[in-house]
């Protein structure tokens, strides 16, 4: 019974959603289901927040490894939650946005989260440089092709590409580095991306059918 009911729900909902796309009178069903989905999605925020707190409080209580970071997590979560819930410093009324300019939430976001997130992401520049040094080596034909493509794209994304090959006449403008970079993006890259997308699309269709027909049951928690 614990397996049959979820399987039945999946079958009915999946079939109805497919029908709603192809048969116009059922079109409204799609909107209704989407609104239901959004309502459920909102509850995921509560679950996510609750789970985050539970995990870190447990870690703190049991003094597990790196428990100090859990204090930072709980503190950060609580401060943002309080700033948002009580709309501290918010210049608007009760209906105004949680993060309205002037509010504590807005200030913390712009002064703490923004620079921290941007810094973490920008660290990639260091790792990309180190990885490029080690990975882009002309070890064989395929690696050499990758190396040449990387060279052209890297130069094509800077004004130096124009400076280096700007003198090439218009009749052979494809040989200018920025145009070569565009060609790589528009031809070999596009062909590869389309092939991947079509493959993913076919995979999604087959997986969806397996779910709707009850063949794929791993989402129920195994075949017990």
């Amino acid at each position: 019974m614990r397996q049959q009911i979820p399987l039945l729900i999946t079958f009915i909902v999946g079939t109805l959603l497919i029908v709603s796309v192809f048969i116009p009178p059922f079109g409204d069903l799609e909107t209704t289901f989407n609104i239901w989905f959004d309502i459920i999605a909102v509850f995921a925020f509560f679950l996510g927040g609750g789970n985050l707190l539970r995990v870190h409080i447990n870690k703190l209580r049991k003094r597990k490894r790196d428990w100090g970071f859990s204090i930072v997590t709980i503190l950060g979560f609580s401060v943002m939650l309080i700033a948002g819930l009580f709309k501290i410093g918010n210049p608007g009324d009760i209906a105004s946005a949680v993060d309205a300019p002037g509010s504590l939430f807005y200030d913390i976001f712009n002064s703490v989260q923004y620079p921290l997130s941007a810094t973490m992401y920008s660290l990639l520049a260091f790792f990309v440089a180190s990885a490029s040094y080690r990975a882009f080596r002309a070890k064989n034909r395929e690696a050499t092709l990758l190396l040449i493509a990387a060279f052209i794209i890297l130069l094509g994304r800077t004004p130096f590409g124009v400076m280096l090959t700007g003198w090439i006449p218009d009749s052979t403008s494809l040989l200018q580095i920025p145009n070569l970079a565009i060609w790589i993006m528009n031809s070999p890259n596009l062909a590869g991306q389309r092939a991947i997308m079509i493959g993913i699309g076919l995979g999604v269709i087959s997986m969806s059918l397996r779910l709707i027909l009850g063949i794929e049951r791993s989402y129920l928690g195994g075949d017990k």
Partner: protein
Amino acid sequence: MAHLGVIISMLVIFGGLAWLLFRSIKGREVERRVIFVFIFVAVAAPILFPITFEEHASPVVKGLFDHIDTLPPGSRVLISFDYDPAMAPEVQPMANAISFHCLDRGHKVVFMSLWATGQTLLFNTLEDVIRPEFPDLIDGVDFISTGYKAGNEGVLNVIVSDFKKMFPTDVNGVPLDSVPIFDEINSCADFDLIVALGGGRPGPKEWVLFVGDPADVPIGVGVAAVVAPQLYPYYPRQIIGMLGGVKGAAEYESELAHRHERFKNMAQPGLKMMGPQTLAHIVIICFIVIGNVAFFRSRRRKGN
């Protein structure tokens, strides 16, 4: 002083790289920490001593720019801020430039977000660009922010046929039925252009799949550089134009400054960031060369 700083930093970077190349000819590898130092100097030097380059819009950027420029004033444009602070240094300059361009052309702009973090970044654009540059424009008449809505693709699936069903009010709780900008907007099909800014999921790709194609609305996108290659299959039929990374933002700003006198005096972060990006790319290229020299030297030694 700035020129002196540029010259000194160039000497340090390229002198150091020449020394590393000399070492690599002897077959010696470069340590990871040395690469980190060079990248740091390459990024920091153009920030401390600004270097700017002239940019020209590529066809893929021009596609979006020209579309916004040629739409008749009063056209309805939807701009979605679907990104977080990590992507903001790349995407926020695009968001600011496109928002400025749309409002300067007299279009009616609706702002929204599918990412919780996008709403605050949207407020930044409103505070930094729209209110100071367009003090006469009225919220609810010339532009409006509907803010963030949870639900990812589910939100798109609903607003494609009924916008107010998912967004009954604006970000300040004002019912959309009472604002003039929404008098003639019922669904996404009523927009003349949708600009999706982001790079994650949901993002520009979802806008194409769930809104652009079903509602037959042109979509323009602005994305982080790493995402741009994945969107080329949709260009130019489903995506009319695309801004990819800092380079895309710089090209758009450059085009905007060429054609709109007013934008020349505004902040152009995309163009400013091209200095560090260019130098970092050149340093990476040099390291690839150095790596290959060291590789071939060591292979030859092993062969001997």
